[in-house]
């Protein structure tokens, strides 16, 4: 039965169902049990924002609190994956990738190729990203383009509770290393989610809204900003097709190109910094493979090339929003031939 639950509950449910289904699935991370070894074990935190709450009580030792030691436990998750487990490691904030990146990009990502196709590393690294929490420069970044750059990794960016559950189950069952990026602002978002386990294949974008005038390619939290913009623009008679990439690696090139071939106009919305991000990647794809379809220059709406600021005024300025997206869409519409 589908019913409305939050993005956070959807993630929790995916973990719980997969742990029930497969004893090889374990969870590890800082405070994922949260309270292991204390008197309050039963009421354990379940993650710094409570995403894994209740799993420790249900699965005991398979939900493992780690010391604050990202290099060791992310590496341990990778090693355990090569040795028969299917670990889901939580890298609390994507910003912390700096202290464990080697284990992700030099080890996990490369094993299969370096070892001649014989290694399987079914590890999932769940991590929180994005601005909007007044969490400043070291807890707010959108670093998924870095992972997207690296062959051997899959990068997943769910925007809705439904996608969060299905993509996480897929990630856990997938035999490659997966970076599963959760936008912290979305945790409280509600949506219809089936109770049963289900999967969503990687590399399949979701067309959130159909339209014939402009293609808006986006991902993560920006899907909701883009949809809001599209709603507003519809009232002005501009029909936007909103594409949620859902995964940046693999990326659903066909859906992007098909749409741009229909609309002839592209706006790409990405919360990440503007250099070498998903917006530039999608723009390059379209410029390379569908240039002749374009009726107007491509516009990118992204965060600026500055660290994420702390003060609310500044952070709000930083984050792309519906108004900026609408402006970009109107701009590409204005260049109609």
């Amino acid at each position, binding site marked *: 039965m589908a019913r409305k639950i939050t993005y956070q509950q959807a993630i929790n449910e995916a973990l719980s169902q997969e742990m029930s289904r497969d004893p090889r699935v374990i969870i590890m991370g800082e405070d994922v049990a949260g309270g292991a070894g204390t008197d309050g074990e039963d009421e354990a935190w379940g993650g710094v924002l409570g995403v894994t709450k209740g799993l420790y009580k249900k699965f005991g030792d398979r939900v493992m609190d780690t010391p604050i030691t990202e290099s060791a436990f992310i590496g341990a998750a990778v090693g355990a994956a090569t040795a028969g487990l299917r670990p889901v490691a939580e890298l609390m904030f994507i910003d912390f990738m700096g202290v464990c990146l080697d284990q992700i990009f030099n080890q996990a990502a490369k094993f299969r190729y370096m070892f001649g196709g014989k290694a399987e590393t079914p590890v999932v690294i769940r991590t929180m990203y994005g601005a909007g929490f007044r969490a400043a420069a070291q807890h707010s970044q959108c670093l998924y383009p870095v992972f997207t750059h690296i062959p051997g990794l899959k990068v997943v960016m769910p925007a809705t509770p439904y996608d969060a559950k299905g993509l996480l189950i897929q990630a856990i069952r997938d035999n490659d290393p997966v970076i599963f990026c959760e936008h912290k602002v979305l945790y409280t978002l509600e949506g219809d989610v*089936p109770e049963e386990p289900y999967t969503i294949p990687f590399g399949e974008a979701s067309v959130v809204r159909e339209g014939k005038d402009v293609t808006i390619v986006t991902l993560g939290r920006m899907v909701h900003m883009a949809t809001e913009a599209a709603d507003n623009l519809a009232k002005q008679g501009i029909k936007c097709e909103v594409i949620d990439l859902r995964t940046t690696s693999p990326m659903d090139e066909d859906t992007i190109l098909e749409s741009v071939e229909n609309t002839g106009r592209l706006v790409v919305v990405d919360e990440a910094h503007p250099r070498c991000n998903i917006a530039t990647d999608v723009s390059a794809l379209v410029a390379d493979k569908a240039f002749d379809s374009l009726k107007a220059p491509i516009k990118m709406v992204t965060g600026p090339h500055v660290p994420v600021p702390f003060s609310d005024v500044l952070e709000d300025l930083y984050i792309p929003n519906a108004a900026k997206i609408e402006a970009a869409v109107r701009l590409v519409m204005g260049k109609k031939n």
Partner: protein
Amino acid sequence: MSESIKALTMPKWGLSMKEGKVASWLMQEGTSISPGNEVLEVETEKISSAVESSEGGVLRRIVAQEGETLPVGALLGVIAGANDTSEAIDAFVAEFQKNYVPPADDDHDSGPKTQVIEVKGRAIRYLRQGDGGTPLILIHGFGGDLNNWLFNQESLAAKRTVISFDLPGHGQSSKQVGNANFGELTQVVYDVMDALSVPKAHLAGHSMGGAIAIDMALAHPGRVASLTLIAPAGLGPEINGGYIDGFIEATGRRDIKPHLEQLFANAELVSRQMINDILAYKRLDGVDAALRALRDKIFPGGKQATVLREKLGSLSMPIQVIWGEGDAIVPAKQAQGLPASVKVHVLKGAGHMPQMEAAAEVNKLIEAQLG
């Protein structure tokens, strides 16, 4: 205010419909209308269909313009007597708009809701609408669910209890299909009737659901008041095995779309939302195995394993068969040569899903049989 002035409003097709877009008006202002006439086309995320008038009169006012998207219940037009004044109609429109409240975004507490009952260890989702009379039970086909009846159930429920449900392996019911044969599925219908305290019901079955309805009537004739078989399986060996296999094997939007288009005479009816809904269903744990098991038992090797055609004549309850002329899944020619007691209706311009593509006609035929 004249009692002859009636509102024509945006219908609600299925539980999830929140709004619809006025695609085109089929009648102009001033046209006389009988109840059941199709007045305009409305598109939803899931499907397009015609809106029928339940009133008779003259289409005095077109309120909603083509291309406009309006919430369920919104005023589309006004049907009134030829003698009602323009002022009265203006006043009616003003009054309606003043009082109209669009449905809340979260409509979980309003309208009919699906429920779940436990039947011999399986969870079965069902939707009960209407009240009284001998209930009508709607049985969907292979790969379908109770939403296949979204243009039918509410309308048919005006005069009686109508129950639709998801077969095992389908929709939101349990995905265990047991032996995966008609015996197993017929038993589920029997058990659902018991569980819902329905001693006797009219059955309407679509495709594989049609064969289940026949099997039920043969096994328990005392509990079946009538049969409406829509593009039914069970009347001949032929079936489009390519469709069945394609539906099972397809994993993404691009590969399932051509298969789904075979279901309809008008392929454009296959919306992105319909595809997404079917993919979401297919991606539930257990569905793939259930569909394969059913295929292997019921449609092995691209043929129907069980043909009940010869047995129809032995049944004494009223039976009608409704087929879309352009059915690309189960050929409409199987409607030929049935016992004389069976009424046959082959609908033009419809494919394998006449209850959707020609909902008004199908509803009318069912009403007629049920009386």
